[in-house]
């Protein structure tokens, strides 16, 4: 029996966390960009469009409505900083949409849009976000799946 009191568990995980900060930040899932597109699912799994819609709306996840319009009339005040995403699947391929969520700076270096699945090349991040992507690989896939339902 190796029962470990919670206090020690917390302590040891703090040591682990300290060790992790000494090593390079966790890598985002690897991917290959061809002609501005990431053709293959980051996780090898298909995304869930229902969860993707929730993640897109969530203010601490995709928060897509901060900048974009989406066909989600139950949510008020869609932003107008980025392009309207109504019908986006009729304009871009799945791989192009995935690339624009993972790292939109691949397509436009000057864009205000954050890279939702990149940990490198960032300056003065708040400690708790260091080495972490805004969205997990599966959350990216879910949003891709949701956006692919938006055809005109």
């Amino acid at each position, binding site marked *: 029996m190796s029962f470990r009191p919670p206090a020690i568990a917390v302590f040891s995980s703090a040591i682990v966390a300290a060790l992790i900060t000494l090593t390079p930040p966790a890598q985002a899932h690897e991917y290959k960009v061809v002609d501005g597109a990431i053709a293959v699912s980051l996780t090898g799994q298909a995304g869930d469009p229902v969860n993707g819609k929730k993640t897109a709306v969530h203010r601490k996840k995709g928060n897509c409505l901060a900048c974009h319009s989406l066909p989600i009339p139950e949510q008020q005040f869609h932003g*107008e*900083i980025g392009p309207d995403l109504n019908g986006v699947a009729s304009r871009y391929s799945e791989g192009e949409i995935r690339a624009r969520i993972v790292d939109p700076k691949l397509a436009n270096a000057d864009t205000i849009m*954050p890279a939702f699945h990149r940990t490198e090349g960032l*300056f003065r*991040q708040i400690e708790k976000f260091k080495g972490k992507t805004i969205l997990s690989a599966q959350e990216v896939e879910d949003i891709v799946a949701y956006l692919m339902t938006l055809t005109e």
Partner: protein
Amino acid sequence: MLHRLFILSGVAALGLVAMPPASVAGEWGAYEVGDIRSGYTYAAEETRAIQDDEFGNPGFIWVDYGEELWSDVDGAAGKSCESCHGDASAMKDGVSGMKGVATKYPVFSESMGKPINIEQQINNCRVNNMEADPYKWESKEMLSMTTYVKYQSHGMPVNVDISGAIAPFYEKGKNFYYKRRGQLDMACSNCHVDNAGNMIRANLLSQGMANGFPTYRLKWQKPGSLHRRFRGCNKQVRAKPYANGSDEYVNLEVFLTHRSNGLPIETPAVRN
């Protein structure tokens, strides 16, 4: 008062959300200088009305308290601000009077070898001349004294000089402004230059001008310093903020305030 006219000429707001403001040149009178527009011109009509109402603008509670503090003797030297500076509402003439002073800040301090802003000058006076404790940055006292001193220049154009020794600090502030930061990887300029006038969710992005600070924010229910606003913006893009009064933020204040040159000092401005 002249500024009341601007309310009448303002763009009507529908419901709770400001209509995107018109971009007709000259529409906003003193609140618009060339391409530069005060946050006033991006505020909802009802928010502008609160600012313009001297009796209803809640920022005047801090102006009034600042006026009380002005003549309060504090510290080992037995002095108040008034002991040296006299009537704050008088035009600055040598040491006396505060009218016009705030238009020039931040200024380069020879003794510090770097720029200082109004808050820092207030504390320099308190520590060196009054032999009193410095005010804490975001304290009621500091906000009130800063608001009171800036209010003496109300309506006068911002006029920050960036020539001479302050120039390299201005450049550092400019670099800060255009540097992407945080997990969201955004620079100040991404919102306040590239997207001023666009809605970010329910909020209309302004040019982020500095001429109204300390600004009474309805969200805060009190006035806040420019550096508090910097910290809020930095945290929103998930970037590590700097300390209030840090060199980084003072340099940024030099850049931003110079960017506001020509706009009237609106302290206490009211924003959402």
